[in-house]
């Protein structure tokens, strides 16, 4: 850090003593988490294609990778790489917020490698009929224990860094709180029940309370961090609204769990509770979108990393559409009675995950890469191409799934057509979906290509990085 640039405040003196050339060297760990993200994301898409083709009758892989294997791999890879992204984000953000190095870089690498090993073991097992057959929680319980140990290690590193740090910002606290709660909520998913109804009931404590609860804290924390860096708006203002947003999230999202309890064999009280509170859930996403756009307008528009800004504001807006609007579209009990467990759900699942979590992880990666590697590739056309191709492709996929879903609901649930006969009718929409998916995958391919082009973090590169850090 140069002596002539006293912008950074408290962190400035600290890093001057510690290391002349960079902010916090341990932030580099994030790079390897992000690299694992890219790898697993690419694999996830491959398995998406396997399912897409199976749905139009091209199931040549059935003997080796039947649909249920492809599905478990597709969704588990998604969850694992998003969690890897959150962890990478935490390793990048927490040192900067707490103004100190991570307590142990070595342990962070141990954590990364063990995470990768558990993930690969689980996914390999799915190809050999080793799993637990509970949607999204297919990982066998033996491996669950390893996941728990891994996450405890991660949380230990983050919490120790945070509390030994110079300051505990709201951004860091909200994000850490999200990570801690996410770990705690994994536990109800590990309890064994004899009844399918109870099993399903507590499965949602993990799945719903993750994506419509604690993950939103993680997302909110990353979003706040990015907005502070990219727009230069005062931290106090941003963090105040962060509290309001996560307040809305929990206020609606906890009781909103009831929207999964309408029709699984539990008391009717959930029709009212779930209906009312889940209908309020879009408010948190609306607040997030307004917040991001407003802060962008209010802020200075001179940060050079435009592409990170695109992903950041994009995440806030698309999550409102995918989770908020498309979630609302089937959350009232009267509607859900017909759409429950159809392709309408798949449509919403894709856009919600994309907008809220995939885009925010791609945002933090786009933001961090120039700073970690010291190479300023963020103004390349490729970045924009990746953004638009993947977004338009995903929108097309979602529309195709949506049309297929509505047709399915109408034919099967209103006109009493047989399931398989209705499926034959919606096949054509999967052809469209696969075309859009190709566009989507091209966009992601370019994103990954750019990631590779950035190269590895080097201390020498980080020296050049001064300005990037100072602007941010």
């Amino acid at each position, binding site marked *: 850090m140069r002596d002539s640039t006293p912008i950074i405040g408290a962190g400035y003196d600290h890093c001057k003593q510690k290391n002349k050339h960079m902010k916090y060297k341990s932030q580099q760990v994030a790079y390897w988490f992000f690299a694992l993200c890219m790898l697993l994301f690419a694999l996830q898409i491959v398995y998406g294609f396997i399912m897409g083709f199976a*749905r139009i*009758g091209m*199931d040549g892989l*059935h003997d080796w990778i*039947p*649909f*249920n*294997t492809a*599905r*478990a791999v597709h969704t588990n890879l998604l969850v694992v790489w998003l969690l890897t992204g959150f962890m990478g984000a935490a390793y990048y953000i927490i040192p900067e917020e707490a103004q100190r190095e991570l307590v142990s870089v070595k342990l962070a690498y141990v954590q990364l490698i063990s995470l990768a090993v558990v993930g690969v073991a689980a996914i390999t097992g799915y190809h050999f*009929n080793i*799993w*637990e*057959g*509970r*949607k999204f929680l297919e990982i066998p319980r033996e491996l669950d224990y390893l996941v728990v140990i891994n996450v405890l290690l991660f949380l230990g590193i983050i919490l120790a860094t945070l509390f030994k740090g110079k300051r505990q910002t*709201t951004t860091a606290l909200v994000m850490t709180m999200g990570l801690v709660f996410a770990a705690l909520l994994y536990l109800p998913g590990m309890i064994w029940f*004899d*009844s*399918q*109804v*109870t*099993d*399903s*009931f507590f499965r949602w404590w993990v799945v719903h309370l993750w994506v419509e609860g604690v993950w939103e804290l993680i997302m909110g924390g990353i979003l706040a961090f990015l907005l502070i860096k990219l727009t230069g708006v005062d931290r106090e203002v941003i*963090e*105040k*609204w962060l*509290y*309001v947003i*996560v*307040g*809305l999230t*929990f*206020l609606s999202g*906890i*009781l909103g769990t009831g929207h999964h309890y*309408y*029709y*699984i*064999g*539990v*008391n009717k*009280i*959930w*029709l009212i*509770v779930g209906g009312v509170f889940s209908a309020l859930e879009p408010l948190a996403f609306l607040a997030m979108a307004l917040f991001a756009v407003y802060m962008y307008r209010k802020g200075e528009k001179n940060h050079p990393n435009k592409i990170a800004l695109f992903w950041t504001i994009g995440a806030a807006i698309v999550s409102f559409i995918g989770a908020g609007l498309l979630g609302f579209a089937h959350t009232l009990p009267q509607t859900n*009675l*017909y759409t429950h*467990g*159809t*392709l309408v759900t798949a449509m919403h699942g894709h856009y919600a995950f994309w907008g809220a979590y995939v885009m925010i992880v791609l945002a933090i990666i786009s933001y961090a890469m120039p700073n970690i590697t010291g190479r300023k590739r963020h103004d390349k056309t490729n970045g924009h191409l990746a953004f638009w191709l993947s977004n338009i492709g995903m929108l097309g996929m979602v529309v195709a799934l949506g049309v297929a879903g509505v047709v399915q609901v109408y034919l099967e*649930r209103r*006109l*009493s057509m047989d*399931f*398989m*006969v209705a*499926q*034959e009718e919606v096949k054509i929409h999967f052809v469209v979906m696969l075309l859009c998916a190709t566009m989507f995958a091209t966009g992601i391919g370019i994103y990954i290509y750019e990631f590779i082009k950035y190269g590895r973090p080097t201390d020498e590169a980080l020296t050049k990085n001064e300005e990037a850090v100072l602007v941010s």
Partner: protein
Amino acid sequence: MLSKSQARTFFLGGTVVTFLIFIGLTIYSMAPSNDQSNHQNITEQVIKGKHIWETNNCMGCHAILGEGGYYAPELTKVIDRKGAPMVKAILQSPIPWAPNGRKMVAYEMNDEDAEAMVEYLKWIGEIDLNGFERIVSPLAKDKIKD
């Protein structure tokens, strides 16, 4: 204008209150008197069936109680629709079951396993699903008593 500490109070207060209500409602709906699932009918065989259901990840293709994959028929009311002998035959089929061209995995189950699976599906089929049972399997509709 709202201050940061008020915003924090809103967050923490809202979370604690809704979480406590959530726990209360959970206890309420888990109470035996509110059971809609004929819990007493969960026999050893049903449990075994559930185990087979899980260890083979049937849910990766099929949905049950409206949860799971959307690739293959929803199975909540399959016993009503197809009858137990037919379901048993499908599970014991040595070649992938695919009368409509979409392949299932050929499980070639033994009698014991296939029967457990059928018992499990029978139990599922009798759960009171707040009206969904009538929608999910229209072909079984006529058989559902009001």
